[in-house]
């Protein structure tokens, strides 16, 4: 039987996910078909209900969980049975009811989809043995209720209501998550069974107050306690079946359930009692009070729900045997009558087109079945015999009287709330079922007997259950005892009866009813008084406050965002540099010792100083000049200076490369410079000084870091290995080249990819939006001859450099640039078209070929089982030919192609040919 529970709960989820297909299959019968599963579950649970022994819980481990510690194991005990039966039973009724109520709505698929998943979520929550699983289902109910409340999302109001509900309950959900993880951290398990059997009580733990606070927020938001109650009246924007379900057995009751579940672990402390009693008491009274001022039937019911939830929280907070027992019974009572009343409201709304109690009248005659069911539910709500509600209320009074230290507060509040309940029940009864003289009876759209049976079945069934349980409350005793055992962790015999003698409690009940009648009789003055107060408190109308809070938050966030992401490039740069500066300097000032190593300071070499001075002058000139052209030339000079430094330290290849690159870059700059906008001086003196300070600071920082770096140089650098093995293993005397094409060929491969991408990028950037380019050519045969010759010489020289590069200065990079320089000159003289003609192909094929060659050099060795890029050599005496040379050729071809491609593209765009 327990296994069946699991299967059926799983089936509900499955059905929910399959609704889109089921709808196609069953059309308008979908609701009724779907209802079968919860009914089956209800039947199963009923069976367990009558067979479950005392003090036993049944566990079914499904063996599945998102994570091992979140296992979805089912826990069936008195508490989960009571909740589970309410959820499945009312769930089935609501589904059946929906199939008529929703018949004319668009988007029924979505409705059933979310409603069934909502039901599944609630069932999962109720049966979860694992707190994390409980949390997951808790969130599922929050999410699905969001879609249900916002079902009518074309309108502003339901959207807002849905958002408020989601934000509040999700906020609570987050708190729950944190609390659950903390409990898990403290106890080492999330399993309720384990927590129960090992008897954990965290009341004295140092983190208890944080956990308590988080649980408090979770419960108060979910169960609509003051001051988070306001989302619940808004939630009635959902279709009525949803409201019926939301209020009676699910969603808001989840908080109550959670409190009962956690009671043995967290409950019973002073703070638990005080805080929940206070919150519950206030909510209980306020809910009842506000219900007096409403005209909309659903709104009245919504506020009475808040009051009822307050009652339950209050009772659980009191934490006595009697109060917990009362809370459990009251949960059943409330679920039964509230579900019935909401369904009744829906029927009335459908049939008359209004829910306004001022307009409704005389329904007892025109809709007798609905009315009688409604009257029974109202009887239960006002706590009158022979309904179960009477027993519930008696128990509540009993529990309150038994708490002398709190009774001074809870009894007046409770009696007041109950008086209002009586009054409001009478009021509703009088206004809509009877026919006061001053009112016209409303006209019906359908005679009642035309309404389908399953539409009426819901309220009727619930009213009858309330009545029968009121007559035979003994049926509940066993399960109640079982539930009490797991909530209070002690054996408690529950005795329920309708009549339990003439005592204090009964006197209090009689007083309550009498006062309720009095309020009803004076309903006009009372109503207007309540309205005045409500209007006064409306300036603190919480839903609006909440919306305004969001709006204020948004504008604040917007302002802050504009301050942070302000769009000024220069300030971004300043932030980057100053933060880095601060971090590095913070490190540097912690260092002790001299800044310049005394023993390492070599003699000052004159030629170095000169080049340095020259470069420095170039930099200063570049900073202060007002012409772009001079700045570029100055930067070029700096580049040459660096290249000279490379020379001094013996890196000939680097020097040549640097020199060539610098030249090509300058040429390209000069080509485009006249097409740039005028050089504008945008910053004033102060900002220039500021920038100068920051720039200098960063420069000083780098200098200091480099100076300090000299202090650790303990290690033998890997370069020693390169020097040793370059010729022996790499077959090349030029270490730089061997590093490039062999030792660290992968870096080179990456870099030439960058170059290839850059060339292609220039092409796309310049061409993607352009149409055909203009064509013009210079004709000068003599010049062409000379320049062609120059081109051939350059290409030849480049190939020479490439081949000898492995042993002497040269190599693919340098060769590529040299060859490209030949094309560059040719292009400057004859225009880009001519170069392309000379090449007989598009430069991008050249790039591709270069990349391909390098790729082959990388891949070929793998066919003989070596890692990629391994040098394979063919030796003929002193001559070694190997894949690194192929690689280098790839580099050469690619670099040539890339530069030619970029230049021709730029020239095309600039219409250089004219």
């Amino acid at each position: 039987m327990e296994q069946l529970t699991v299967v059926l709960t799983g089936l509900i989820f499955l059905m929910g996910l399959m609704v889109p297909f089921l709808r196609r299959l069953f059309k308008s019968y979908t609701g009724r078909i779907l209802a079968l599963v919860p009914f089956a579950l209800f039947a199963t649970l009923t069976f367990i209900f009558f067979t479950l022994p005392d003090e036993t819980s049944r566990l079914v481990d499904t063996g599945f969980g998102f994570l091992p510690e979140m296992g979805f194991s089912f826990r069936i005990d008195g508490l989960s049975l009571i909740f589970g039966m309410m959820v499945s039973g009312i769930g089935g009724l609501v589904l059946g009811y929906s199939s008529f109520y929703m018949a004319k709505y668009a988007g029924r698929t979505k409705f059933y989809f979310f409603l069934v998943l909502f039901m599944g979520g609630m069932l999962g929550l109720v049966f979860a043995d694992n707190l994390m699983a409980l949390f997951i289902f808790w969130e599922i109910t929050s999410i699905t209720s969001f879609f249900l409340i916002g079902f009518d999302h074309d309108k502003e109001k339901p959207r807002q209501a849905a958002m408020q509900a989601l934000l509040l309950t999700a906020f609570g959900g987050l708190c729950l998550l944190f609390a659950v993880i903390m409990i898990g951290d403290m106890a080492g398990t999330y399993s309720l069974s384990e927590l129960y059997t090992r008897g954990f009580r965290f009341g004295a733990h140092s983190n208890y107050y944080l956990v308590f606070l988080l649980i408090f927020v979770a419960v108060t938001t979910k169960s609509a306690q003051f001051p988070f109650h306001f989302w619940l009246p808004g939630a009635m924007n959902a279709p009525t079946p949803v409201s019926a379900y939301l209020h009676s057995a699910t969603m808001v009751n989840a908080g109550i359930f959670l409190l009962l579940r956690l009671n043995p672990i967290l409950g019973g402390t002073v703070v638990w009692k005080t805080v929940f009693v206070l919150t519950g008491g206030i909510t209980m009274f306020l809910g009842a009070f506000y219900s007096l001022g409403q005209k909309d039937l659903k709104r009245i019911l919504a506020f009475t729900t808040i009051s009822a939830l307050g009652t339950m929280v209050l009772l659980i907070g009191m934490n006595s045997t009697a109060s917990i027992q009362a809370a459990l019974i009251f949960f059943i009572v409330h679920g039964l009558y509230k579900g019935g009343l909401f369904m009744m409201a829906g029927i009335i709304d459908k049939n008359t087109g209004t829910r306004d109690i001022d307009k409704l009248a005389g329904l007892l005659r025109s809709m007798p079945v609905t009315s009688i069911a409604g009257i029974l539910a109202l009887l239960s709500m006002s706590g009158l015999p022979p309904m179960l509600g009477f027993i519930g209320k008696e128990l509540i009074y009993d529990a309150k009287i038994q708490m002398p230290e709190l009774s001074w507060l809870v009894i007046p509040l409770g009696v007041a709330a109950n008086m209002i309940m009586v009054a409001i029940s009478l009021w509703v009864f009088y206004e809509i079922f009877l026919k006061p003289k001053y009112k016209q009876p409303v006209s019906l759209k359908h005679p009642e007997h035309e309404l389908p049976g399953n539409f009426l079945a819901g309220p009727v069934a619930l009213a009858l259950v309330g009545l029968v349980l009121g007559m035979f409350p003994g049926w509940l005793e066993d399960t109640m005892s079982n539930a009490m055992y797991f909530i209070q962790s002690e054996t408690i015999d529950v005795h329920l009866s309708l009549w339990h003698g003439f005592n204090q409690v009964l006197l209090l009940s009689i007083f309550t009813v009498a006062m309720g009648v009095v309020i009803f009789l004076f309903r006009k003055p009372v109503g207007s008084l309540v309205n005045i107060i409500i209007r006064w408190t409306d300036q603190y109308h919480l839903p609006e406050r909440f919306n305004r809070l969001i709006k204020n938050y948004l504008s604040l966030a917007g302002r802050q965002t504009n301050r942070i992401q302000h769009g000024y490039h220069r300030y971004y740069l300043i932030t980057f540099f100053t933060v880095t500066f601060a971090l590095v300097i913070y490190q540097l000032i912690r260092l002790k010792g001299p800044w310049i190593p005394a023993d390492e300071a070599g003699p000052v070499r004159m030629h170095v100083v000169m080049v340095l001075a020259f470069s420095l002058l170039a930099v200063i000139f570049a900073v202060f000049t007002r012409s772009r052209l001079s700045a570029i030339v100055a930067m070029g000079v700096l580049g040459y200076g660096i290249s000279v430094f490379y020379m001094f330290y013996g890196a000939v290849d680097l020097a040549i490369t640097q020199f060539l690159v610098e030249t090509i870059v300058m040429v390209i700059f000069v080509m485009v410079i006249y097409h740039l906008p005028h050089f504008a001086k945008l910053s004033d003196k102060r900002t220039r000084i500021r920038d100068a300070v920051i720039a200098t600071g960063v420069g000083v920082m780098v200098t200091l870091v480099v100076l300090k770096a000299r202090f650790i140089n303990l290690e033998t650098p890997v370069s020693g290995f390169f020097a040793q093995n370059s010729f022996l293993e790499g077959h090349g005397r030029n270490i730089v080249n061997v590093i490039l094409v062999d030792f660290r060929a992968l870096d080179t491969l990456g870099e030439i990819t960058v170059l290839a991408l850059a060339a292609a990028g220039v092409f796309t950037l310049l061409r993607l939006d352009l149409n055909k380019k203009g064509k013009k050519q210079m004709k000068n045969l003599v010049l062409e001859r000379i320049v062609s010759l120059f081109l051939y010489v350059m290409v030849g020289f480049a190939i020479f450099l490439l081949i000898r590069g492995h042993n002497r200065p040269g190599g693919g990079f340098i060769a590529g640039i040299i060859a490209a320089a030949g094309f560059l000159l040719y292009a400057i003289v004859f225009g880009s078209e001519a170069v392309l003609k000379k090449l007989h192909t598009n430069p991008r094929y050249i790039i591709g070929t270069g990349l391909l060659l390098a790729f082959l050099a990388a891949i070929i060795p793998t066919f003989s089982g070596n890692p990629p890029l391994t040098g394979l050599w063919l030796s003929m005496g002193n001559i070694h030919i190997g894949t690194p040379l192929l690689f280098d050729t790839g580099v050469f071809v690619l670099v040539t192609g890339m530069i030619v491609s970029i230049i021709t593209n730029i020239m095309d765009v600039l219409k250089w040919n004219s």
Partner: protein
Amino acid sequence: MIVSLPVFLPLAFMIFAFLFRHYHGREYVAVGAAALNLAVSVILVLKTGSEGMLKVQMGNWPAPYGITLVADRFSAMMVLVAAIVFLATMAFSVHALDVKRKRFGFYLFAFGILMGVNGSFLAGDVFNLYVWFEVMLMASFILMSHGGERNQLEGSVKYLILNLISSFFFVAGIGLLYGKLGTLNMADIAAKLMEFDTMPPEINPAFILIFVGFAIKGALVPFFFWLPASYHTPPPVVTALFAGLLTKVGIYSLIRFYTLFLHQHGEFWQPLILWVAGLSMVIGVITATSQFDFRKVLSFHIISQVGYVVMGLGLFTVAGLGGAIYFLAHNMISKTNAFLVAGYVHRRKGTLSLKTLGNFYKEHPLWSVFFFISAFSLAGLPPLSGFIGKYLLIKAGIEAEYMGIALTALFVGFFTLFSMVKIWMEVFWKVEPENKKIKQRNLTNKADLKQSAAWMTWASGGMALVIVLGGVFATPIVEYCTQAAESLMSPQLYIDFVLN
């Protein structure tokens, strides 16, 4: 060999793109190559799962002299997730991108990014890592400006310049490091640092420069400006690709460096990292909620979510790192898919301004589901992958007794949810406002409407499925991440593996 394939495979495609640039089926070749890349990465994950680590010495030169490519569980996982993201965006682009952009090298540059990203994940050498950063930067800059629309160029300039500064700091740091330690191999650096009893403080400035380089790449506070300035400008599919891959490489590198090097000076780095994480989470989410553009909301959120990952790193426990890795993977997928949905919305409505959008839930229920799954996964709701990620991190925070940052992560999740709900309400639930301009735009979009969107649907749907499965069947994934974290937490394993 398998370790180097994620680098050479994209390269092969790029060569194809250069040599056969007029071939008309380029998008299908691209999707095929992306699928192949996914297959390779699956093998890589399986192999690292059983063997722990794999390496290849490029050019057969022994470490630390030659360049090592290393795949441990962490990098293999990242390569796999990147492959998923990449395949989805490539498939999405088949129907999403205009013909012109496709013809002008979109796939070439996309594979350039893939090559750079994979290379970064596998690099076992700091300079090599820098090279992959450059490949990525060049390719991404071009894609950012690809098409040359005005606001695109504006975004690209900021993107390029601010990222160049990242490169500058990074390469300067590498230079200093090399000058001090005489090696570039990561394992070798770690080994040499371990020889010191206490890490010499002279080394820290180099690491700070490198850290700033990574923090810029990873868009952490206060170095994130380039991201929101540029991510909303290119075509949505490009943003989706970027959102899934770019910042994550910076964060990956930060984790790698922290676990190998920086942890030795933990008393300085750990609080710094945690503060950066907390501030990134908070500032990212505040700025995100204030936006009224679909893509801007998502872009600002990247900052916040990257903060979560860094938080896991800052906790520096196995649980924290494992959570960080899971979160990183989750975020790459969920975020990309959220942008893919934005791409579809843009395609249908021609705008991404929340105020002018509406009606999407009614008109495109399937895509609403895709968005719902991605966005609510980002907000960390169960049963989606984001929930697991958030849970792992918060749990790790509580266990490590960093209540402050754990609570920050918790409540940042709330604001994330808020902004996702905001998008949902504005784009999906609201009735589309009547507006002449929009009507006209819709008319001009008619041609678009007729064109098939099948590839888009499959791409985004597949990703949504991954998100759900990643949450529901999280157990093996989390196990893998935890193993990855364990091996990260004992760097000696890595050092021994690479050097021997």
